[in-house]
């Protein structure tokens, strides 16, 4: 069974891609078969992140959604290149300007077909590749690609900073799409409380609880604002900063995701009475 997790945010710059890339690598390093798909067609960035490790792909996610190829044509394996225990497949969105323009001018029928293709991808990953987790890096805010991702995901993780204005935007989105998010959404605070970095963990947690008081979704983790992470050139921090507290926090998130998926599998294995 493949668990599809969408990483979403109400605006850009929350660190969604950094979280996505490193979480995918972390899960794969633990032996899980992971797929990371770039669904941010307005600002694709996964290809630039993984460029040092891969050849230019023959097909992109765009091609799959445009019915020009099949899943095994556009998914690129990087597990071996990164020496990971499990498989890590990446679906890159085409970063070229023409491709971005093309994806912005799609009709509603095309968008509906794209949603069907995403469901087909999920079935393919589960049936053909024994994939455990599929992480989707979505386009921030409200965009058809992110709405599609949210609809077909089993779980949505909102990556947000601790900026109260951003939190308000998150609250608005959650209120608007209340019954879509249902019980499958959680929030991950990233770059949290830069002004109180001297506070102990407990102090930051208390602050997070106060901040999330009006948003009735669980907090899956909190990653403080680390200046050295922000200034690092690469987004794939796993190999440069493995011992960094950033990874300690991300490990906690990964542990929660793995244990919840395990529980879900066990629940599904029990036949309904």
């Amino acid at each position, binding site marked *: 069974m493949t668990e599809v997790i969408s990483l979403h945010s109400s605006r850009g710059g929350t660190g969604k891609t950094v979280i996505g890339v490193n979480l995918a690598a972390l899960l794969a390093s633990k032996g899980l078969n992971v797929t990371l798909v770039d669904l941010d067609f307005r600002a694709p960035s996964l290809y630039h992140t993984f460029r040092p490790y891969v050849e230019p792909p023959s097909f992109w996610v765009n091609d799959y959604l445009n*019915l020009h190829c099949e899943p095994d044509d556009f998914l690129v394996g990087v597990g071996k290149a990164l020496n990971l225990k499990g498989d890590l497949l990446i679906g890159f969105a085409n970063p070229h300007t023409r491709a971005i323009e093309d994806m912005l001018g799609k009709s*509603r*029928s*095309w*968008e*509906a*077909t794209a*949603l*069907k*293709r995403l*469901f*087909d991808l*999920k*079935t393919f990953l589960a049936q053909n590749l024994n994939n455990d987790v599929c992480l989707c890096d979505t386009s921030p805010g409200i965009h*058809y690609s992110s*709405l*599609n991702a949210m*609809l*077909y995901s089993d779980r949505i993780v909102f990556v947000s900073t601790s900026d109260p204005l951003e939190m308000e935007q998150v609250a608005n989105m959650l209120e608007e*799409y209340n*019954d*879509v998010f*249902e019980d499958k959404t959680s929030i991950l605070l990233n770059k949290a409380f830069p002004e109180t970095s001297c506070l102990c963990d407990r102090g930051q947690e208390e602050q997070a609880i106060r901040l999330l008081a009006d948003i009735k979704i669980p907090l899956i983790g909190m990653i403080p604002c680390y200046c050295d992470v922000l200034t690092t050139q690469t987004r794939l921090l796993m190999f440069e900063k493995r011992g960094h507290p950033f990874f300690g926090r991300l490990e906690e998130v990964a542990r929660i995701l793995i244990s919840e998926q395990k529980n879900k599998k066990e629940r599904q294995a029990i036949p*309904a009475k």
Partner: protein
Amino acid sequence: MKGRCGEISKKGVPPKDAYDKIIDELGKLSRKIDSLTHSTETILEAEEKILSTLGKRVLLESQAKTVVPDATALLSLPGSLRKTMLAMYKLGEATAEDLSDETSRLRAVESACANQLTRMGYLEKKRIGRKVYFQIQQSLGALAE
């Protein structure tokens, strides 16, 4: 023996005036047939106009009924119908029973939801033998194939 065209001679050959009468009657018949043909043509033309108007209306109605089931349309659906619709996206074509297996809801609930979605123009219904299959609109299916 007297026919409509006059008296027939004993040898069975009609008199000359009888021929004239026959020709006259045939002429009248021919004119009536022409008139009838003209009327029929007029009626057919009128019928064609009516059918064409009706056809356009039916087409417009069917177009109005066709919904593009994209993300925004799905988000506007009530949660119970959206659940069926998302299961349909996964399965492509399904019976109420297949839907029930997918969503873990009762078959009757899925049947009601799928029928409602069909009335709303999101799904199409077809019968194969005793089974009723629902599918996402043909146009979307064709595009997705």
